[in-house]
């Protein structure tokens, strides 16, 4: 058995920032990650990171835009804290060595983003996530801590009402390992792969969220799933909002700039939920291109601007779609992109389980409420990664030594052995494909009771099939067949929570759009959904939204 004071699971921006905070607080820290830290999905973030540092901009405007963007479901105290931390966070990352794009006067360059009152998004070409991940990895590398790389989290052990450690599997050897810890931070990212059409990496399977849920953590607002308006048609590879920030425009098959009908003031730079619904509406009303998509046009921006500011986008379009955005429109469709929900936390990253913390996309503070603004997620990983790491370190400094036993491994070993002992059983990848079809088809941008109820029925049937899932690969090293089986189990739990939450919420708010309940209902629904695991499935309760200064108004862009 290994022992550390603080164990961070996940090594993207949130996990690494948490690790840095905990190491700086003097704790013995271990980072457990299923990917090499530089392979984390944070690196795929393109557009930028918000901070109201421009002379004409203000922190208050950033707060207001975020509250409005959240469709008034974000907690205003958390949003205020978050936006105040933005400037110092960006400066710190610059001092760590991030190579940001610059304006001619040597200051940080900024671009306009959807739902924002001013050009507030600081960027590094169109690979801001990669630039931040490089700098943070390099900075963290100067500190002393342990990394368990390519280890999958299997269990969080909770005893006597507090976290005692984790059980994980080392992919390289196939060995089960126990790590005793006084506190555990979950920073394992989203579960975007519950959908088939997603911009998320294959690794975004919600492992940490599902395992925390099984350990008693409450999940918050899981029904709020963001669909990014512009993903490449077939592969769903993300085309950054920065493309519209730089002046790109959406057109339907009739050559119309259709956003004028949906957001007359800000057009293509409306909030993401608004633009995604507009695209689907255009297609449903017969104004899409055959096969169902619209065009994103950049041609009018000119070769120089496209190739310098949207370098990766040019590359992606040329390599993955055979389209040259300098001379041709890019065929796009909305795709799942972000989960506003996650493990419910306080501003300090605390969950309802003592010793368990969460940050980044795996967590829900909530600052994004019902819809996240572009440029706010990179900022969230750093601000709340630091918060969770600091709080986990403080708790570990005064917590009693963990009570982890060799026997805590036994149920995990039994479960894993059972997966491969069967002579017949279900293929985990077939279950995954079926789950993704259900989520794409019935729990998408527009939702209704009839579709959601059917989805729940299908998901529960899949969960029954999953009980008989079988691993045919018998090798110990890098058994991806086993990984598939574990991951799809995590995703089925979360798909169920998303769907149950969506059925219960009989209103339309932000990214949750019910065709049978098209209006926002503040009287009944201005509250967070809380899901906890029970024998009968997710048990729902509700909690109040925190208010400070901003009264709910109708959201118009």
């Amino acid at each position, binding site marked *: 058995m290994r022992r550390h004071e603080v164990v961070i699971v996940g090594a993207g921006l949130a996990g690494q920032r948490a690790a840095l905070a905990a190491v700086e607080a003097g704790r013995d820290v271990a980072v457990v990650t299923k*990917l*090499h830290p*530089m*392979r*984390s*999905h944070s*690196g*795929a973030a393109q557009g930028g990171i918000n901070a109201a540092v421009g002379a004409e901009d203000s922190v208050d405007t950033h707060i207001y835009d975020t509250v409005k963007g959240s469709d008034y479901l974000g907690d205003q105290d958390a949003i205020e804290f978050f936006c105040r931390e933005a400037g110092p966070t960006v*400066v710190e990352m*610059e*001092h*760590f*060595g991030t*190579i*940001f*794009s*610059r304006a*001619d*006067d*040597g*200051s940080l360059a900024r671009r306009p983003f959807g739902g924002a009152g001013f050009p507030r998004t600081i960027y*590094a*070409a169109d*690979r801001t996530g*990669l*630039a931040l991940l*490089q*700098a943070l990895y*390099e*900075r963290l*590398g*100067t500190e002393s801590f342990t990394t368990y790389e390519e280890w999958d989290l299997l269990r969080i052990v909770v005893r006597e009402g507090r976290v005692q450690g984790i059980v994980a599997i080392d992919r*390289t050897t196939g060995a089960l390992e126990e790590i005793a810890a006084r506190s555990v931070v979950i920073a394992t990212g989203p579960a975007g792969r519950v959908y088939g059409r997603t911009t998320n*990496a*294959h*690794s975004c399977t919600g492992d940490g969220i599902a395992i925390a849920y099984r350990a008693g953590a409450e999940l918050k607002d899981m029904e709020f799933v963001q669909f990014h308006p512009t993903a490449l048609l077939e*592969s769903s*590879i*993300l085309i950054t909002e920065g493309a519209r920030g730089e002046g790109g425009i959406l057109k339907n098959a009739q050559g119309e700039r259709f956003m004028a009908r949906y957001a007359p003031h800000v057009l293509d730079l409306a909030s993401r939920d608004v633009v995604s619904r507009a695209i689907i509406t255009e297609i449903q009303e017969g104004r899409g291109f055959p*096969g169902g998509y619209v065009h994103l046009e950049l041609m009018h921006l000119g070769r120089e601007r496209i190739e310098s500011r949207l*370098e*990766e986008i040019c*590359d*992606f379009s040329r*390599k*993955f779609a055979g389209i040259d955005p300098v001379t041709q429109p890019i065929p796009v469709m909305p795709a799942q992109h972000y989960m506003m929900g996650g493990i419910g936390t306080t501003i300090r990253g605390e969950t309802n389980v003592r010793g368990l913390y969460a940050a980044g996309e795996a967590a829900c503070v909530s600052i994004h409420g019902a819809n996240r603004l572009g440029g706010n997620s990179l900022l969230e990983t750093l601000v709340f990664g630091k918060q969770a790491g600091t709080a986990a370190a403080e708790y570990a400094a005064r917590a009693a030594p963990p009570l982890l036993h060799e026997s805590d491994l036994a149920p995990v070993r039994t479960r894993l052995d059972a997966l491969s002992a069967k002579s017949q059983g279900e*293929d*985990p*990848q*077939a279950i995954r*494909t079926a789950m993704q079809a259900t989520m794409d088809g019935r729990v998408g941008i527009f939702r209704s009771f009839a579709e959601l109820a059917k989805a729940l029925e299908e998901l529960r049937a899949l969960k029954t099939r999953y009980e008989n899932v079988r691993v*045919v*690969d018998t*090798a*110990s*090293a*890098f058994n*991806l*067949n086993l990984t*598939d089986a574990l991951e799809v189990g995590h995703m089925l739990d979360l798909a169920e929570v998303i769907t149950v939450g969506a059925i219960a919420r009989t209103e339309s708010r932000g990214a949750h759009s019910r065709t049978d309940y098209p209006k926002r209902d503040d009287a009944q629904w201005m509250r967070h959904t809380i899901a906890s695991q029970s024998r009968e499935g997710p048990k729902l309760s509700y909690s109040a939204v925190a208010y400070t200064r901003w009264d709910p108004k109708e959201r118009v862009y």
Partner: protein
Amino acid sequence: MAAELLDAPFDVYRFDPAHEATPRYQRYALHLPAHTPVLTALLAIRAELDPTLTLRYSCRSAICGSCAMVINSKSRLACQTPIGPELARHGRIVIDPMRNMPVIRDLVTEMRSFWTNYHRIEPHLKPNRARPPPEGKPNPMTPAEVARFQETPRCISCAACYSACPAVEADPMFPGPMALAKLYRFVVDPRDGATNERLARIQPEGLWLCLRCHLCTEACPKGVRPSERIMDLKELAIASQGATDPGSRHALAFKENIREAGVLNELKLVRQTSGLPGMAAQLGQGLRLAAKKREILKRPKPIEGHAEVEKLYEILDREEER
């Protein structure tokens, strides 16, 4: 618009060192459209034919750097290599794990040496005392200063360059193209205060072991062009440190040597590169060579058209001054 399906035979390297004595190739017959990325094809094999095939992959959009492998003898990312051109040229698709690192299983390699070499160059900012970061504000940096990084910020540490590099294969001292491109990124960073130290350290630690074959630049899926940054580092190292190392002395001696007669004076080159003690160390090898090729002991006569050589050098000198 249904795309035409191609017959796509895949021969995939399979090996589990824990249970098997030797690797083998397994044939999978697929039928896919020409634009299908190799990664998508491999995932189709896993989903439909053989869930025991193992590999690393994550983002499928050439940003996480997980799926570097050898495809028809070239190190590249599976996610951004379409099958059509491969099939047109080779008739089939042969998949091997990356080179220059041991195999854990199938296409998954043990990448420790790659990362150790990267950490060896101390890849983190060492603040410049002459230009301290302003309190609570970002360092100013002009777009021209950002341009000095060239394409190095695009690096996704996929190790395709490391897999393609013959110098890595030949000499464990060579840090590899990625580590050196990363070193360049810190050397040109106006916020970094350790430029001279970094350049002094890398001279005897492998900078001059690069063979200038440019296979790394060919392999790099992100256009980082590591070999060009290595050449830049060599110039920066000589400019900052002088020729302190046999490698840099060799480069300068070579240049002057050719200038003299338009042809190499090998004896002089060895003396200038290694000095007299170095010559003594290579005496045995030198004598064996001289037995076969007596001319190397003589000072060469200027070649025909030596004046042209001199003119070329003058043009190059002028370019450098500019």
